[in-house]
């Protein structure tokens, strides 16, 4: 219990750190007012706009106000869209969750089996088929995979829509694009952690007892190699939830990634701050959950931590 409380306290401190960093970094990188006014504005007109947005205040004061807002759960108002940031995020979050879930399911269903096969059949043709798939996934950037899929599936074959959100069929291409990198990461991790276990004495013992490969795999190997796989899955999931700028941009998918890139190019400070905080929260929560799952999968971990 104490462990959980400690972890939550750590999480809150991390979030405060993120909030502070993003606040100051943003203000070093450009002025939203210059982007909002007509290009032939005068310096006075720009000053009026800056005052209206409260950006003329000393930075320290702005920072204190911002922290105060966060603690009262107020994420502020978008400069550009002139709407509460929380509304903007709630409009986008469901789409990002849909896409993240779909990509995550593909990652688990494809990444883990490929990794297992590549490990178990190391040195055979199976590995020679699996490894290039992993390699391709790893080395093709999303903007390339995405466009290739659109050209082939949407433009040539006309099977699936090229962009937008018209139900499930619109989800397929972005999910594949987004998953291709995660699949490679998860498959590689699965392969290496199973290979590591394969050399262990208990596997040799099990083999000498005449246990089948499948039995060894499911009975012993998976369990013993699950910790790194779960870690990687957790990180990939947090990554997916943070919104994917490139995939969402290519497929015009209205998720958080698209909101992020729009807000960054307009220097819409309140929105960027909120999206970054949200992304950091996802990471922290997923990490917390993964830690708790460790303890459940492998009781030794929990004991060790409680003792310390």
């Amino acid at each position: 219990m104490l462990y959980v409380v400690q972890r939550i306290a750590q999480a809150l401190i991390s979030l405060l750190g993120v909030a502070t960093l993003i606040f100051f970094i943003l203000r070093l990188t450009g002025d939203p007012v210059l982007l909002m006014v007509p290009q032939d504005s005068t310096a006075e007109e720009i000053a009026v706009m800056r005052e209206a947005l409260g950006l003329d205040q000393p930075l320290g004061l702005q920072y204190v106000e911002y922290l105060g807002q966060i603690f009262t759960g107020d994420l502020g108002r978008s400069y550009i869209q002139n709407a509460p940031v929380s509304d903007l995020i709630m409009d986008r979050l469901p789409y990002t969750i849909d896409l993240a879930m779909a990509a995550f399911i593909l990652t688990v269903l494809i990444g883990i089996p490929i990794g297992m096969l590549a490990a178990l059949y190391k040195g055979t043709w199976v590995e020679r088929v699996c490894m290039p798939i992993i390699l391709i996934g790893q080395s093709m950037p999303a903007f390339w995979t995405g466009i290739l899929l659109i050209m082939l599936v949407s433009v040539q074959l006309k099977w699936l829509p090229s962009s937008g959100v018209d139900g499930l069929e619109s989800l397929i291409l972005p999910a594949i694009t987004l998953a291709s990198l995660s699949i490679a990461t998860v498959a590689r991790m699965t392969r290496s952690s199973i290979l590591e276990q394969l050399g262990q004495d208990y596997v040799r013992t099990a083999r000498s007892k005449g246990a089948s490969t499948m039995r060894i795999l499911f009975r012993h190997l998976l369990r013993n190699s699950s910790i790194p796989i779960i870690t990687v899955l957790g990180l990939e999931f947090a990554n997916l939830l943070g919104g994917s700028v490139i995939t969402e941009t290519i497929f015009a998918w209205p998720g958080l990634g698209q909101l992020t890139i729009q807000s960054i190019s307009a220097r819409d400070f309140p929105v960027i701050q909120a999206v970054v905080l949200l992304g950091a929260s996802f990471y922290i929560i997923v990490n917390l959950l993964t830690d708790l799952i460790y303890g459940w999968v492998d009781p030794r971990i929990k004991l060790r931590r409680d003792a310390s």
Partner: protein
Amino acid sequence: MRKSLLAIGFILILVLAGCSVAKQDSEASNDGTSTKDRTLVVDLTNEPANMDPGLNYNFDSFAVYRNIFDNLLSRDPASGEIKPWIAESWEQESETVWNFTIREDVTFTNGEALSAEDVVYSIERILDPTYKSPQAANFNIISSAEADGNIVKITTEQPSPTLLTTLVNLSIVPKDYVTEVGNDAFNASPIGSGAYKFDSWSKGTSIKLSANADYWNGAPDIAAVEFRFVANTASRVADLQSGKAHIITGITADDVPTIEDDAKLQVFSTPTERIGFIAFNMIDDTPTKDPLVNKAIAYAINYDSLIDNLLNGYGTPVTQVLTPLSFGYDRSLLGYSYDPEKAKELLAEAGYADGVTLELATSQNFDQRVVQAIQGDLAKVGITVKINLNDHPTFLQKVQDPERKWGSLRYGIWSCSCMDADGTIFPLFRTGTIWSAYTNPEYDALVDAARATTDPVKRLSLYSDALKILEDEVPGIGLYQVHALYGAVKELAWQPDAQENFFIRDMSWAN
């Protein structure tokens, strides 16, 4: 064993529990229903920030909301001349007082009549500082607007030659409705008097409009429109090829062959008042302080090759930092043409016979291939160009910093949506504006005077003199007039105009 599988299963269940794929109406495709009922699908580059005309300042917003609202005045698409629209006529009472007569047969789509009061309100809310309108800077020449019957009397602080061009961009909002529901509700559910009515907005995805059958200027041909937001150019082109969209905006000359190779598609293009230009830093201590160096650069650039090879011909040569569409363009000026030998001579004369290194500032908003072409041209005459590329906000902050430490030259595209020299050469070169890196009291006096009189003959002569100074001292070079490009299906008929208006009422199905 079971536990590890359970762990994975647990995550999967969490995943599935939250999973809900939003199902949306699928939009009209190219087949099926008769053309009259077909929804026109438009791919825009970005989502409009909001639907309130007073709070917007970019093409993607104009493209949508100007279909919902009427503007006070319009321009003839062919000649660019300012024409009546909601104001059926106007007269100038004095240098600073204008009277506009408002049409009496216009109603908003909630049934209420559009009156002079609504016009006054539409101006006043932009001028109200608490409303934070980004357009305030364009309108603050107006000191008062009053309604009297169907007459709107507008008084300007000083004689304003560009008042009419500003009012071409003024969208009329319904005063009673806006004051009753408030700005937020108005933005969520806008009501105007335009040819189209607002139907719905799925955030991040699309905005849908339908035709206003009772439009005062006749019901439009296209029954419904869906504006989608597709940031990636290749994706917009793919949408067009796959039949997902009927017309797409924001394409480049590179996309033209792809579109033209497709028998079902066509390209719409027209010259605009946008100008591709180079501006020199003549304030900071750099070699470009010397007009000789700038002249050398002006002779070193191969304009024709730039237009033919990079822009695939979708650009027009200019002789000044202004397009022929703008009021004030002086046809008697010859400008500079490609002459690398002359460039080398001028450089030697300026004391840089052994070459010189210059820093060029630019932003990701502009075509970087143009920058590289210029870099290549200048290298041939002994000028080494160091490109300093930033994203747009950083570029603006750098270039607009009063210290003017941004390097020697910068490349950009300029448009004032006003088709007047005042909107281009004033902000770019008048001493003390946020952009100008040039100072010349004689020039300042000319552009100031041209801004303070409404007499067109006087203004033309003032601009002619001002442009001659720019030609002699070369604080900037006009590179080319930008052409607007749109990709569309062949069934769509439309004539785009120089103002880059995107009125769906001007489009129709060709078959």
